[in-house]
C-alpha cells in the first residue's frame, strides 16, 4: 500500500512537472547560448549569461522533473546552436567583419568548415555544395561509416532517371561530366558568340566522336589532341576578353571550359570505358546506391552544367536516409547501453 501510494505520488509529481514545463516554455523561451560573434557582448567572468527568473508552479519541481526540463532545454539549445551555426556565415555581422578584414584566413575557414560539413550536408547546404558533389560525398562517407552500427531503416527510393545524370569518379578524374552530354553541350551564353565559332564547332564535332570511342574503350590520341588544342584556344580567347564581359559571365564560361578540360582528362584514363558500363551509378534505393558506390570504390563527381536539379533531388533522398540512419543508430546504441546496465 505504501509502495502504491509512493508510486502514485511520484507519477503525480512527474505530471505536475510536465505541466510546469509546458507552462514555462509557453511563457518564456529557453536560454540561448551566447551568439557566435557579437561585438557588444564579449563573454566575461563577471557577467555570466543571464537567465529570466522562474516563477509560479515551476518552482515546485522534483529532481526527475528537473531532469526532463534539462533534457528538453538541451535539445532546444542544440537545435538553436545548430541553426545559428548554419546561418552564421550568412549574417550581416560576418559581412561587416569581412569589410574590416578581420575574418579568418581561407585556410582557417576551410578547416572550420570541414568540422561542420556533415551537419551542413544533411540539413541545408548551399546549392553550390550540392552541385560540386561535396554534400553528396559527405553523406556517402557518413553512410558508409554508419551502416555497421545501424538497425533496419526503411528504404528511400531513387528514380532511375536521376542516376543517369549523376557523375561518379574513382578519384583520379572529375567523372564523365560533359562527355556524357557530348551530343548536346550546354554552351554558356558568352561562348555562343561569333568570336568563339571556330573552337565551338571543333568541340561540337570532336567530343561526341571521342565519347563514342571511349565507350568502345579505344580513344584516338590524334582526335584527343585536336580536341585539347581547341579547348586551350577557347580558354585563351576567354581570358583575353575578360575586360569586355561581366564577372558573372566570365565565371560561368570559365566553369564550362574547366569541365571541357576535365573531359579531356577522363578521356585519357585507360579504364574510361568503365564509366559507361561497370561504373554507371545503379540502385533502386539510397542504400543500394551506397552499396554500389562502396563496392566499386567510387565517389560522386561535380554536376555537369544542366544536371543540377538531379543532384538536388539525389541530395534530398540521401539526406533523408542519412538522418533516418542516425536515428536508428542512436536507438540501437541506447539499447546496447540499456542491456549493458542490466
Amino acid at each position, binding site marked *: 500500500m505504501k509502495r502504491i501510494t509512493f508510486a502514485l505520488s511520484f507519477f503525480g509529481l512527474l505530471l505536475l512537472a510536465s505541466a510546469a514545463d509546458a507552462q514555462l516554455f509557453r511563457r518564456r*523561451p529557453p*536560454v*540561448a547560448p551566447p*551568439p557566435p560573434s*557579437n*561585438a*557588444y*557582448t564579449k563573454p*566575461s567572468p*563577471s*557577467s555570466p*549569461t*543571464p537567465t*529570466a527568473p522562474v516563477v509560479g508552479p515551476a518552482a515546485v519541481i522534483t529532481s526527475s522533473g528537473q531532469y526532463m526540463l534539462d533534457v528538453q532545454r538541451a535539445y532546444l539549445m542544440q537545435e*538553436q546552436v545548430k*541553426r*545559428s551555426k548554419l*546561418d552564421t*556565415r*550568412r*549574417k*550581416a*555581422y*560576418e*559581412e*561587416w567583419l*569581412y*569589410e574590416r*578584414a578581420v*575574418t579568418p*584566413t*581561407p*585556410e582557417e*575557414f*576551410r578547416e572550420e*568548415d570541414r568540422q561542420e560539413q556533415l551537419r551542413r550536408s544533411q540539413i541545408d547546404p*548551399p546549392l*553550390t*555544395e550540392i552541385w*560540386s558533389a*561535396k554534400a553528396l560525398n559527405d553523406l556517402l562517407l557518413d553512410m558508409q561509416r554508419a551502416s555497421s552500427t545501424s538497425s533496419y531503416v526503411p528504404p528511400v527510393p531513387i528514380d532511375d532517371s536521376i542516376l543517369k545524370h549523376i557523375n561518379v569518379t574513382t578519384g583520379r578524374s572529375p567523372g564523365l561530366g560533359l562527355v556524357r552530354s557530348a551530343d548536346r553541350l550546354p554552351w554558356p551564353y558568352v561562348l555562343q558568340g561569333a568570336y568563339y565559332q571556330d573552337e565551338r564547332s571543333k568541340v561540337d564535332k570532336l567530343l561526341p566522336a571521342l565519347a563514342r570511342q571511349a565507350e568502345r574503350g579505344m580513344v584516338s590520341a590524334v582526335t584527343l589532341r585536336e580536341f585539347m588544342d581547341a579547348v586551350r584556344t577557347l580558354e585563351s580567347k576567354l*581570358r583575353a576578353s*575578360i*575586360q*569586355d*564581359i*561581366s*564577372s*558573372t*559571365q*566570365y*565565371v560561368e564560361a*570559365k*566553369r564550362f571550359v*574547366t569541365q571541357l578540360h576535365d573531359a579531356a582528362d577522363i578521356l585519357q584514363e585507360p579504364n574510361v570505358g568503365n564509366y559507361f558500363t561497370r561504373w554507371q551509378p545503379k540502385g533502386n534505393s539510397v542504400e543500394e546506391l551506397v552499396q554500389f558506390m562502396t563496392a566499386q570504390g567510387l565517389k560522386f563527381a561535380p554536376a555537369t552544367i544542366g544536371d543540377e536539379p538531379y543532384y538536388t533531388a539525389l541530395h534530398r533522398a540521401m539526406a533523408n536516409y542519412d538522418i533516418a540512419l542516425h536515428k536508428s543508430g542512436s536507438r540501437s546504441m541506447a539499447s546496447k547501453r540499456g542491456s549493458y546496465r542490466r
Partner: protein
Amino acid sequence: MSRRSILFVFFVVTCSNVFGEEKRVAVGKCLSPTGMIVRREKGNAAWQVVRIAEPIFTEDLLLALPLGVLRFDNDMRMSFLADMDGRSPFPAIDSAVRIHANKEVDLDFTLDRGRVAFSNVKKRGAAKVLVRFHDQVWAVNLKEPNTRVAVEIYGRCPRGAIFSRDGKNSHSPVFDAVVIVMTGRAAVRIGNEEHLLHPPPKLCFLHWDSIDGAETPRRLPKLPDWSEPDDLGKLKVGLKFRQKIQRLQQFRKLVVGQSVSAAVETFLESNDPAKRRFAVYAAAAADDLRHLTQALNQPKDTDLCEDAVRAVRHWLGRAPGQDLRLYRHLTTAEKFKPSHAETIVQLAHSFAAEDIRQPATYELLTAYLRHDVTAIRVLAYWHLYRLVPKGRDIKYDPLGDKETIEAGYKAWKKLIPDGQLPPT
C-alpha cells in the same frame, strides 16, 4: 454643374482622402543647429535643410549628418546617433527615420537606417512607442519619465549574392538590430514576447537579426562608447573630437549655404583625408550616387578606396533592389558599359564559400588587377587583400601608373598561379 458631377467629385475627393497617401502633419520641431538634419519629402529626390526650431512633418525622410535632435509635441525626444568614425561595434554610419502620424501611441516611426535614441520627457507617466524597420514592428513602452532607449539597424547583402541585370532572383539583404536601454525602464514587445529592460549593468541589451530573430536579453557592463550627450557643445574636448566637430560644422555650413551635393563635392576635393572620408559616407547616406561612384572610380588616394567600397556595400545593404539601382545609375548616368557595371555591382558583394575554394575566383580577381576600369581594380584588390593575407606585402596600387600596376599584377600572379588556390 450637374448633381452627378458634384457627387462624382465628392466621391473622388473622399477616396483620395481615405485611400490616398498619408498627409504631412507637423508633429514636433528640430532642436539641432540648422543643417544638421536634412529632409526629403516622399516622391521628391531633393534634400532640404531643416532649420533650428523648424517643424518636423510626418512621412518625410529625416537624415542626420550625422547627429541631430528632434522634440515631439507629446513630450518625446529623439536623437540621431550615427557614427561615421567607426567607433561602434556595428556600422551605424548614417541615421534616417520617417515619423508616422498615430494617435494610439506617443511616437511611431520607421528607422530607415542607423541609430537613434528616443526618450520619454513627460513629467509623469509612461510613453508608448512603435519602432518599425525591415518587416518588424516593435512596441516599446518607456515605463517612466527620462527613460531613454537606443535602437540601431544595419544590413548587408549575404555572401554569394548574385546580381542579375533583369532584377530576377533578387536577394534581400540580411539585417541586424540592437536595442539598448540607456536610462529608466522599458518593455520591448516583439511579437508575443515582451522583455523588460533596465540600463547597464542590468539586462539592457537586445539583439535581433533577420535570420534567427530576437535573442534573449543580455547584460552590458556599461553603456557603449557612442552614447554621447545630444549637445555638441558637451562633447569631450580632445583634439580629435575638436577636429571632428570643426569638420561637422564646416560641412553643415556648406549644406546650408549650397546643398548636400555641393558639400559632398567640396569635401571630396579637399586635401584633408578625413574630410574626403566623411564625404564618401555622406554621399552614400544622401543617395548621391554620382559622388559615390566618383569616390570609387576616381578616388584621390588609395585610402579613400577602402571607404568607398565600404560605403557602397553599406548602401547596397540598406534595402532590396539597391544593386539594381546602382547598376542603372552606372549605365545610364555614368555611361559604364553594361558588362563593366555588372562586374562592379557583383564585386561589391562577397564571394560564396564555394567560390572561395575555386582557383577560378582568384584567377578572375588577379586578372582584374589590371582592368581598364579603376573601380574594378579597386574592388578586385579589396577582395584579394581579405582573401589572401599572404599577398598583403605585395606592392600594388590600384591608382598607380601602368608600370606599377603591371608589376603588382605580376607579383600577385606569381603568388597565385592559374589553376591554383592561394598559399596558406
